[in-house]
């Protein structure tokens, strides 16, 4: 079975590295990190991920701005994405994720099990 491709967009390299290590450790995903928000769309077009993690607050371009471009891009509009944010608290997201106006949110700090659960849910695994 082909590995699912996941793109991580966050301005903090240590965080994308930790996310990548945890995801790759399962052996089921191919992961790409992008720490420059302005390059996120270009990387997505080139990498063609199945799922994108988007930090909400980033210098240059915010996560929701990137999401807007994703939905308008015919080649990327089918790609699932999930917001990763420090502003939403765990209580608001319940266990793991929250749907706020139709968007999926994952609250920092996220635990490995929650992370893998959200990925499985969104990719229908």
């Amino acid at each position: 079975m082909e590995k699912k491709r996941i793109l991580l967009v966050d301005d903090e390299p240590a965080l994308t590295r930790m996310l990548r290590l945890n995801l790759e450790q399962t052996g089921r995903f191919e992961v790409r990190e992008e720490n420059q928000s302005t390059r996120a769309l270009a990387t997505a077009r080139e990498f063609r991920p199945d799922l994108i993690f988007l930090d909400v607050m980033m210098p240059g371009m915010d996560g929701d701005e990137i999401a807007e471009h994703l939905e308008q891009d015919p080649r990327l509009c089918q790609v699932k994405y999930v917001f990763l944010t420090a502003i939403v608290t765990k209580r608001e997201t319940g266990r793991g994720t929250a749907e706020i106006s139709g968007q999926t949110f994952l609250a920092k700090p996220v635990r490995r099990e929650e992370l893998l659960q959200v990925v499985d849910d969104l990719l229908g695994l």
Partner: protein
Amino acid sequence: MTPSILLVDDIPSNLRILYESLNGRDYRLLIANGGAQALEIARRSHPDLMLLDVMMPDLDGFDVCRQLKADPATATIGVIFLSARDAAADKVRGLALGGVDYVTKPFHPEEIAARVAIHCTILRMDRELASRNRQLELVRDRILSSMTEGVVGLDAGGQVEFANPAATALLGAAMLDLPLAAWQPPDLSETVGRVLGGQDQFTVAELDLAATGTAPLPVELRVAAINARPLPAPASPRPPADPAGQPHPGGGDDPADAPGAGGAVLVVRDLRERQRVAAALAETNNALRQSHRELKVAQMQLIQAAKLETVGQLAAGVAHEVKNPLAVIQLGMDFLEQTLTLDQTSATVFADMQQALLRADTVVRGLLDFSRERGLDLTPDSLNRLINVSLQLVRHELVQRNIKVITELASALPEQPFDADKMQQVLLNLFMNAMHAMERDGTLRIATGLHRLRDEELGPQARAAGFLGGDLALRLLIEDSGPGIAADHLDRLFDPYFSTKPMGEGTGLGLSVTRNIVNLHRGSIDIGNRDSGRGARVVLLFHADAAPLPPTRDGATSIAAAVAGEPAPATAQSVSSPPTEVPRGEETHPAGG
């Protein structure tokens, strides 16, 4: 006006001598040759003066004088007796009858003229004095009539000599006809009697007369003795004794000490107007104090809002900056835990690190919660229901700690607009605080009720939230049997980050968040120690007047029933269900607990 003088003698030669003595000196002279004629002329012409012979055949001079004095129309005529009888007894008799002078015959014409001139002068001065007196009386009557104070003059025997219209209106005409001893109320006659009896020279008293019916009539009474000497002014030193020999005050020849002097003047002032003004002033004062208080509350709220705004921005920033590194650590630890084979010690280290991470996250989450308590999702809800639901969430811990719960929840409470989630957060926080204070084996008492607030029971937070004595409030009491709160902690309970728990337990934000939520419900929370017995006492108040009432009449009467059921404002728990144990329900853990 030329004085007219009637000359009376039965002997024509005597009449001629009198006539010649006075003729040519600016008098109008009349003549009578007998007593009867003298009376007739006197009644017709009203002479100013009469020179009256005593010895006359028809009616002697003394009889004429007696008749003149008996008739008010002629009584003022001045009588000078003329007689050959020069015995002292005769002179005394004549003067006693009202004569002004007594001249013995034979007289010298010049002497007659001189005496008549003197008496005419005296008469003129007398008339001027009388006319001046009448003017003064008129002025006095006008002054007394126009005064709003009642003025009463009393003689030494306590009989009213005069009373102005205001006095008659205040004291009643009937009472003024009575002797002082019969005046009502008794303290009125006593007060006046003290001055009349000489015990006081001057006295001031306030009395209630109730003279004009059943309505109370408060008056100020000032009574002064008529012969009261002016009291020495305290500010000015007494002048030195006059060496010219002025009568010394208190000396025997002082007219005030003369027998027969006495009496008192009574001034009565109606105090109702003054009381009305005072009441109006007090009312204005109250309104002013109330608006001042409201202003202070508004100011406090503004400051609080500004503080929250700042804290909110800060919190969001801090949360963002802290949560990213926390996420890195969390995921890094999770990764290492998966990939490394850990021995016993390393596993303990990992567990400790995980605990530390959770704590840090809890603090940041509390900060975010704190900064976000700005809006509420209000729906009509029952405070009692919220209490029961929250109690179920902590039931497990209550049982474990062997803490007994007594609930006294008023049955007729109206529903109020509450944010159920946030109110549960408040209640859980307060229940947890109580449990932690008691540790093990204690009693948690929870009581609700509609309560008419008394001013003296309002705590500082209740006042700051705008509660006033007399307000109808929904009240929740939470009392524990723990050690209570140290005096130096009471003021700081609501400060963000103030905590009595050991480092690492509790964020210190619990009570400040709790207060914010309660304040957003337009309520207040005061925390102190119980009046009797050990333990802390938490009082939450919500405006019951603001409660949206059900449109039916039943809703309104249920509030009335709940309030009317209070026997005394001190206990609001009388309308409550009997103490119950913690409701048995499914075991649930408080969120984040």
